[in-house]
């Protein structure tokens, strides 16, 4: 029976080429989109879940107290003192490993030096994440302070081979480190990635702050592996108690808790110290999109199948009279849809393989189908059977319910109330989804444009920056003099952080007329040198820039406009502020500019002079010379100062571009999948029109003989379909409007929902639909009436 059903299903597919084509292509696109998004979702979902013990790996989080017993922020930075405390007093803790956040540092094999991602960590990290050692012993790898573990690809870059054990590399042109291990490259979807790993004991040698067990500096990450039976709530209560008992307590003390490390990626947004989601929302959105498109394709299948019901009804009738029962017919129709889905999935996988490289490039990922994993096949199989069932169920149950005598007498009324209305509902549903996607695409595009065009507060063009490393830290003044003399830059300064980045947050600030005993507003600090405003061109609202002509400027500060608002100073210039217990006076007020996230306003900022806090050099290029000449000059002079380091000049405007990445991904995806949704919907519409015109061939023949014009007939055929699109527009526009207004409200800075988006989406959809419908309608209307009439 099954074999026969299969054979007949294939014959049916072959016989109805148009509808099979529409079904297969539609389903294939739907499945490909679905699989692609699911691949991405799996990639995101498995973030930091590669280690055997991932469930028990926790990261210590810090709550920053804010106004009125609230928690202003939650982040994963901790002090150096927390780790040893937890290890000594918490019985549930198996391992503790402190790390730094990681940065780019120089690693060299002789003359070949590279900037690579480096990380310092305590040796127990190797016991939490089971890194695969190609060579070396994980037990002893980080014992010696002057040692390093390389990843496979770093070893290949440096030595051309993974056989690098016991060879020596030079770190930051300062220390020689012996390689004690080479490990397999870390998976892309892990948060703690590095190219080479160095022992914490080496970090302690490099930086005295690290060795000192303190409760002030939150620049470190503490990873904890708990016993697998540990009750996290109980552990967190103990952590709280331990910290309270051992750390000095005051209004600004920051409580800690442990959070599952793998959750940080998707559930990393905290409000008042409680997790409230995060990137997972985007994942939900993508899953919705994936199944939405698949559903559209399934609806196409259902519509085509029920449209053909008149034809199939006869078959059902005959089969019933020769002894088929309902379940065998349902089975037959389901077999048909399964066969179709199966063909579609093969096509979908081919499509996926073709488009994945482009998709990866577009979104900067590296994902692919793992063909050798049982789970991926089970997943594909699951999707295929679900799709086949959903697509096939309605026609199967609908068609198999036909009464034999009615079908044989051709009494099935295709224009009857129930089936046409369901078909209409399905088509309307499809187009609603498509129109909502169009509106979403337009709004997302407008929002990205809005943020991009929003002034950042200074002239980003001709502004470049580079990391301040090696000799540039100590010989900055000489470097500045040489560059100015060479004429490549008009002015420059050094600062603790890049202009586009946030500096350290702090609260230890007092000002005159403070109402509260201690400040609870989070401030941001930037340490800089002279010519801060002169170089970056941020608008000065009052006062002046730092200048060498005023010796007292070493104890002067500049503040942002929002800081003045917090201070409540009417006339801020010359007023006193106490910063970390030291008095300073305000010499200038600058306008707030965009740093960190371009979507929200920033906290108040304080800028002061401290030549020891080096980090980034910002330069304004000399417009009198060509860009190329300027860059070459900077390169040459930098190389002379820092021969061991590659020069890395980045343009500040491209740093700002980077910030739009996640919204740009959203934009690309909604464009892509919105387009696909419309295409697949139109494919279905085309199929329906084609079928409807085939059914009405005779009617059209008669009408033509009676004198109907081509336009009359086209109108006759198109109108009923366009009516459905019109209904879809009426339903979709309010939904699209409300959801996008809600989305926009997520951003502090957002564009308005422009009224013209709605008619544009409506007219766009109608035009595409009209084009689809009239193509077929014209073909039918132009046909010779004789051909139509001789059918009977």
């Amino acid at each position, binding site marked *: 029976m099954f074999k*026969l059903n299969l054979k007949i299903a294939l014959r049916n597919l072959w016989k109805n080429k148009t509808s099979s084509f529409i079904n297969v292509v539609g389903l294939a696109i739907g499945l490909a989109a679905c699989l692609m998004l699911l691949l991405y979702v799996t990639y995101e979902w498995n973030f930091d879940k590669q280690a055997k013990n991932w469930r028990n790996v926790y990261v210590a989080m810090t709550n920053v107290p804010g106004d009125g017993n609230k928690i202003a922020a939650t982040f994963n930075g901790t002090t150096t003192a927390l780790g040893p405390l937890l290890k000594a007093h918490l019985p549930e803790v198996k391992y503790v490993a402190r790390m730094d956040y990681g940065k780019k540092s120089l690693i060299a094999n002789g003359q070949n030096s590279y900037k690579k991602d480096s990380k310092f960590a305590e040796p127990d990290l190797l016991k939490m994440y089971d890194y695969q050692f190609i060579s070396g012993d994980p037990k002893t790898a980080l014992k010696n302070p002057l040692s390093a573990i390389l990843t496979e690809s770093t070893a290949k870059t440096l030595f051309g081979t993974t056989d690098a054990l016991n060879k020596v590399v030079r770190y930051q042109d300062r220390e020689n480190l012996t390689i004690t291990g080479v490990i397999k490259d870390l998976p892309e979807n892990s948060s703690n990635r590095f190219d080479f790993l160095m022992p914490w004991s080496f970090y302690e040698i490099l930086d005295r702050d690290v060795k000192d067990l303190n409760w002030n500096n939150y620049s470190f990450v503490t990873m904890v592996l708990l016993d697998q039976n540990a009750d996290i709530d109980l552990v967190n209560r103990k952590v709280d108690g331990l910290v309270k008992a051992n750390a000095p307590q005051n209004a600004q003390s920051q409580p800690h808790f442990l959070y599952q490390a793998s959750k940080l990626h998707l559930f990393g947004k905290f409000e008042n110290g409680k997790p409230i989601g995060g990137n997972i929302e985007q994942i939900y959105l993508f899953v919705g999109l994936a199944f939405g498109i698949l559903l559209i394709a399934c609806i196409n299948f259902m519509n085509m199948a029920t449209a053909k019901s008149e034809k199939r009804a006869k078959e059902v*009738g005959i089969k019933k009279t020769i002894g088929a029962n309902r379940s065998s017919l349902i089975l037959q129709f389901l077999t048909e849809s399964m066969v179709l889905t199966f063909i579609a999935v093969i096509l979908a996988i081919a499509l996926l393989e073709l488009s994945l490289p482009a998709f990866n490039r577009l979104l900067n990922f590296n994902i692919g189908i793992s063909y050798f994993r049982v789970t991926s096949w089970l997943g594909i199989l699951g999707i295929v059977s679900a799709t086949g069932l959903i697509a096939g169920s309605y026609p199967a149950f609908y068609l198999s319910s036909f009464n034999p005598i009615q079908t044989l007498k051709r009494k099935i009324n295709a224009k009857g109330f129930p089936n046409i209305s369901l078909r209409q509902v399905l088509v309307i549903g499809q187009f609603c989804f498509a129109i909502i996607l169009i509106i979403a695409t337009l709004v997302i595009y407008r929002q990205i444009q809005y943020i991009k065009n929003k002034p950042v507060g200074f002239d980003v063009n001709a502004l470049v920056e580079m990391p301040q490393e090696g000799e540039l830290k100590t010989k900055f003044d000489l470097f500045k003099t040489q560059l100015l003399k060479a004429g490549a830059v008009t002015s420059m300064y050094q600062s603790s952080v890049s202009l586009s980045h946030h500096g350290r947050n702090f609260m230890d600030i007092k000002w005159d007329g403070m109402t509260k005993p201690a400040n609870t507003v989070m401030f941001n600090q930037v340490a800089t040198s002279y010519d801060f405003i002169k170089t970056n061109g941020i608008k000065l609202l009052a006062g002046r820039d730092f200048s060498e002509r005023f010796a007292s400027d070493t104890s002067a500060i500049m503040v942002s406009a929002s800081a003045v608002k917090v201070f409540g100073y009417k006339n801020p210039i010359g007023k006193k502020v106490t910063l970390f217990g030291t008095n300073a006076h305000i010499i200038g007020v600058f306008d707030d500019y965009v740093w960190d996230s371009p979507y929200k306003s920033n906290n108040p900022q304080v800028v002061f002079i401290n030549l020891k806090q080096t980090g980034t050099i910002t330069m304004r290029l000399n417009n009198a010379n060509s860009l190329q000449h300027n860059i070459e000059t900077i390169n040459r002079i930098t190389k002379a100062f820092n021969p061991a380091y590659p020069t890395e000049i980045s343009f500040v405007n491209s740093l700002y571009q980077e910030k739009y990445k996640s919204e740009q991904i959203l934009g690309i995806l909604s464009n892509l999948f919105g387009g696909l949704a419309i295409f697949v919907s139109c494919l279905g519409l085309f199929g329906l029109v084609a079928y409807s015109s085939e059914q009405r061939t005779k009617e059209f023949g008669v009408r033509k003989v009676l004198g109907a014009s081509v336009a009359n007939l086209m109108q006759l055929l198109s109108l009923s379909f366009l009516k459905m699109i019109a209904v879809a527009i009426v339903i979709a526009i309010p939904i699209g409007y409300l959801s996008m207004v809600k989305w926009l409200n997520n951003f502090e800075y957002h564009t308005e929902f422009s009224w013209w988006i709605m008619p544009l989406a409506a007219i766009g959809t109608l035009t595409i639909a009209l084009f689809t419908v009239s193509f077929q309608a014209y073909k039918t209307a132009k046909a010779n009436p004789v051909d139509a009439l001789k059918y009977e």
Partner: protein
Amino acid sequence: MIQLTNIEKYYASKGVKNYVLRLVTTTINQGEFVSVMGPSGAGKSTLLNIIGMLEEPTYGNYHFMGEDVTSLNERKRIELYRNHIGFVFQAYHLIDEMTVYENIEAPLLYKKVGSAERASRIADLLDRFNIVAKKDLFPNQLSGGQQQLVGIARALAAQPSIILADEPTGNLQSAQAEEIMSLFKKLNEEEGITIIQVTHSEKNAQYGNRILHIADGLIKEDIKIQA
């Protein structure tokens, strides 16, 4: 084998009852070859459909092989189709997507006949009807007469005790019609299969041994033909 008592069938439209059959009472025994005749719209096909359980009478009793079928559920009815009733239609109603062989095989598959048994029965039927060479063709590749032969072969495949034929030769040329009718006669005489056919043609009716004349929903005449 078939006992109809006071069968009535009407369609109500706008409060007016349009009678198709009125108080039809008759008995058809095993082994009879009955032709139902009458003008268009007389209710012949409706009667046949009621006998075939494709339609339900509005009133009246119908016993098929001693069983009251007026209140039979779908599952039981399909059991009867599988084991006792073979249908032959004027428009052949072969399944277009199936070959001749598969069309004949279909009822056996539904009846869950074993594959060896199936093959031998189909081979036998193909042989008997001289359509062995056509077994891999599709219905639209055959002439009308050939299609009807396949239709009858399909009806016979399940070895029914009764064949219901609604104008089986209505779409055929006279030579082909004669062939089909002699086949029916042979099946009736040699294998004892009960046959009920609806026909317009007096000539075709003569192949049987009983004629029911119907007009305006009533049985006007019940004639036995002496062979």
